[in-house]
């Protein structure tokens, strides 16, 4: 009787936004997948472009205009740059995109009736890398505008990355490898995993974070719990959308490198940045840090380069002064860390001591990253300072004051434990591939467990208050 109700569910009167955790997005991806499978290789790029346009259209035509303009301009700039490989041609080519990014990040575009173009931060970095790579002769220029539009507008990654490079995409859009069932299955599962991570884990943790940090009467341990959980929230949030993007791309036949590699298991901040938002870190390394001289020009220059790179990273994340402080703090701590590591280098040789130091490193690094996320979360230092004041005041753990029930606490412990265990396992082997090759009974039991826990613990429905992805509008 009840099941019948679903079949009467009506389509909305206007096109709904294809948000990545919505049923409509899942249906849209499945249709795109079917389209890609049945169409000839030569037709597929057109189909993918049409799907990307449709995806953007669901957010509004203004977003299409912005991305098409950027793609068209950078396509022409690529052709010109390919012909005249001069530094000033490159500078001239990059100027509109850097300018656009700076304008929308730092100026009041709303007064002109504009909206922030969806995914601008991500696709402008993509076109910059494309132009610089042409200038450096590292890639061939693209002559086919459809293929290039596909690259810039590729819908699985346009909203929140990862920032993939043109080199791999160029091959895949042309050759379009044979359908690999295992790959598609892995991609599909990774996508579902991302949705699960967001709706069941992340949004629940987010609700606890807001209860701990927004209530100004809470102090001490209660605030500490909120701060630590914010670290988990931002990780789960960004990892979720990366899983959805990468999984969706794999389903459509495009391999995109992983964006996270158990970042909270890093022993140093430097290592953290090789595991966190990998596509952005490598982009900053390849297009800012190394062109500035990297670590080839002595220690002082290296530190300055590091500083500049992280300032850019901070500015890329947002226009508040706190993002700048956050970038600077990351750079300064890495400088100090580098000095300490140089001092201890090759001095500890005992395996047990190394392991102990590694564990201590992980804990200290997590504490540093967590404290720095606090700067990232708030708009100004006064708000950060207020939270730190509350943190330093005495206050014992008070479930009732936080507004949590015992059941919520139990579930929170499960969520954090599962996140940590999966991260440790993920650090050692490819979880998705391993899972997909296990006995089907176990796999289906996990599916059922996921479905049931999604239904019970997911943040959706009448009390739906799920936050948007933190990185979507960066």
């Amino acid at each position: 009787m009840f099941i019948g109700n679903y079949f009467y569910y009506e389509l909305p009167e206007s096109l709904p936004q294809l948000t990545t955790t919505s049923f409509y997005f899942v249906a849209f991806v499945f249709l795109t997948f079917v389209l890609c499978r049945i169409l000839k290789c030569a037709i597929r790029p057109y189909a993918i472009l049409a799907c990307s346009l449709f995806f953007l259209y669901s957010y509004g035509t203004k977003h299409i205009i912005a991305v098409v303009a950027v793609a068209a301009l950078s396509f022409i700039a690529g052709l010109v740059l390919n012909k005249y490989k001069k530094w000033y041609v490159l500078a001239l080519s990059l100027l509109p995109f850097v300018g656009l990014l700076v304008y929308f990040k730092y100026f009041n575009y709303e007064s002109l009736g504009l909206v922030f173009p969806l995914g601008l931060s991500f696709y402008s970095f993509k076109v910059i890398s494309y132009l610089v790579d042409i200038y450096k002769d590292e890639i061939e220029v693209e002559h086919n505008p459809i293929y290039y539009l596909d690259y810039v507008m590729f819908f699985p990654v346009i909203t929140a990355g990862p920032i993939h490079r043109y080199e791999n995409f160029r091959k895949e859009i042309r050759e379009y490898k044979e359908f690999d069932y295992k790959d598609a299955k892995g991609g599909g599962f990774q996508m579902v995993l991302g949705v699960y991570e967001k709706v069941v884990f992340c949004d629940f943790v987010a609700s606890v974070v807001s209860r701990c940090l927004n209530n100004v009467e809470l102090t001490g341990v209660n605030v500490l719990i909120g701060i630590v959980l914010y670290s988990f929230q931002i990780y789960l949030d960004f990892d979720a959308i990366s899983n959805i993007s990468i999984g969706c791309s794999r389903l459509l036949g495009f391999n995109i490198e992983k964006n996270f590699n158990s970042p909270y298991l890093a022993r140093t901040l430097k290592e953290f940045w090789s595991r966190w938002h990998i596509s952005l870190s490598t982009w900053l390394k390849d297009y800012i840090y190394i062109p500035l001289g990297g670590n080839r020009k002595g220690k002082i220059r290296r530190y300055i380069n590091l500083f500049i790179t992280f300032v850019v990273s901070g500015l890329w994340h947002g226009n508040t002064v706190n993002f700048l402080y956050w970038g600077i703090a990351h750079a300064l701590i890495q400088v100090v860390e580098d000095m300490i590591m140089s001092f201890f280098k090759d001095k500890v040789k005992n395996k047990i001591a190394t392991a102990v130091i590694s564990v201590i490193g992980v804990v200290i690094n997590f504490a540093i990253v967590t404290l720095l996320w606090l700067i990232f979360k708030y708009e100004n230092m006064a708000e950060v300072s207020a939270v730190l004041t509350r943190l330093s005041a005495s206050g014992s753990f008070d479930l009732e004051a936080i507004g949590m029930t015992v059941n919520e606490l139990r579930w929170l412990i499960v969520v954090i434990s599962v996140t940590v265990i999966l991260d440790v396992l993920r650090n050692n082997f490819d979880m998705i591939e391993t899972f997909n090759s296990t006995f089907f009974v176990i796999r289906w039991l996990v599916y059922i467990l996921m479905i049931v826990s999604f239904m019970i613990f997911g943040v959706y429905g009448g009390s739906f208050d799920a936050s948007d992805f933190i990185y979507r509008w960066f």
Partner: protein
Amino acid sequence: MHQTLFTDGSKMKRSIRYILEISLKLVLVALITLTSYEVLNRVFYNNEVSHGDDFKSLPEDSIDVIVLGSSHAQYSFVPSFFYEETGLNSYVLGTSCQPYQVSYEMLKEALKTQQPQMVIMEVFTALPLRSSCEGDFCYIMAEYQMTGKEKINVIKMLPEEKKNQYLNDFFTYHNDWKTKESFEPLNKEENEISTGFGYIFQHARAKLPDNWWHASQYGYDIDIEIEEDDLESLNAIYDLCQKNNIELLLYKTPVDSFTREDQSMMHKMWEWADEHSVKYIDFFAESKKLSFYMGIHSDAFHAYINGASMITRRISDEVNTYEIESYDSEILKENYETEERTYTYYALQYETYPITYLKRLENTSGIVIVSYQASGSQLYKTLYNGILSLGVDSNSFINGSNYCAVIDAGKVVSEGKNTVEVSNADYDVSVTENGITINGEEHLRKTNLLIIYYNKDTNEIVEKQIDQYANMDYGREFYDWDNDLDF
């Protein structure tokens, strides 16, 4: 070579095979999801709001007369009385503030399994007053009583944010896990005290004030039209009845038509009925003829059991002028005779007549727990006197002040403003601001008047009644409370 848009033969076959395989798996996942929903919803979140009176459980083609309308229909039409007078089986498809549109969908739903020969429709919700209707009980009914397109049409009337909730109540209730103490099968309302009396305006006066305006005396001078949606639904109900050869009869209960707008609207209804050759009984206009008095036969909204008897028997007289042959369902006949499963009867008998309830408690040998939270205004005098008759001293219980007491066999053993506690060999009872605990079992203490009757010999709560509207000021807009009717 012939060029196509699609991939070549063998590749295509392989692709289609994989797509089919993936599609089948997706269907399997969808089925697991829906089954899990069903299991979870029934085991953990089963809301019994209307399961007890499931229309769909009736035998096919067993109902002769279907009654549509709002709570006014629920409280004024008693199927067992109707059966006594006419020998016909009837069923009230009425819910609180049920709009005409919902009545239309309910009728369509009913026609899926029943072929009634007559539809009796109570017309209150056309009144402008219905804007004061709160809650969406009829949509909760839709969740359980309706299926298919009819259900969707009802849900479509809801605000956007509520639609999902009623299409799938798991969307709302799945968050109950946060407060559940165990994952045992549990009725959501188990530990709550039922809302008992419903709307009680015991202060309703017995006679109209001198300055009372009535349309029959002064004419229908307000230019008012039946709302477009209502008119459309009314016409649709009429057409549906015509198409299915069903007689239609309209009626308005004798309460709640106090303003010129109300009277003019009811006159419009009469005009509509006249145009369509449909019989319309306006009990408000007939109230004097029937000697129907508010305060004796009804509160400000709903008829009491004695008032419902008058209304149902008057409608029965009218129905007897039609030639309707009963389906003669044995099951229903048994129900009427034993008065079981007739929700309306129970509602009227036990919920809408607090004075009867209080009088029954007067001579009881059990424990009566009284909890009254004044919320700034006085309790209706009739209710106040009824409580005094349980053995409470008027010096201790001052009308308009909070009061709670434990009464054992007619004697107050403990009383206070907000809290009381009694502990002896037979029972432990405590009343606090948040709840009432009887031998360790906690009950929510809702605002206003709550009376619990507890049998200490069998250690069970025999009855518990709450009147959340005991001191609501709503009726003051219409009545002069000083002329209170004293029982």
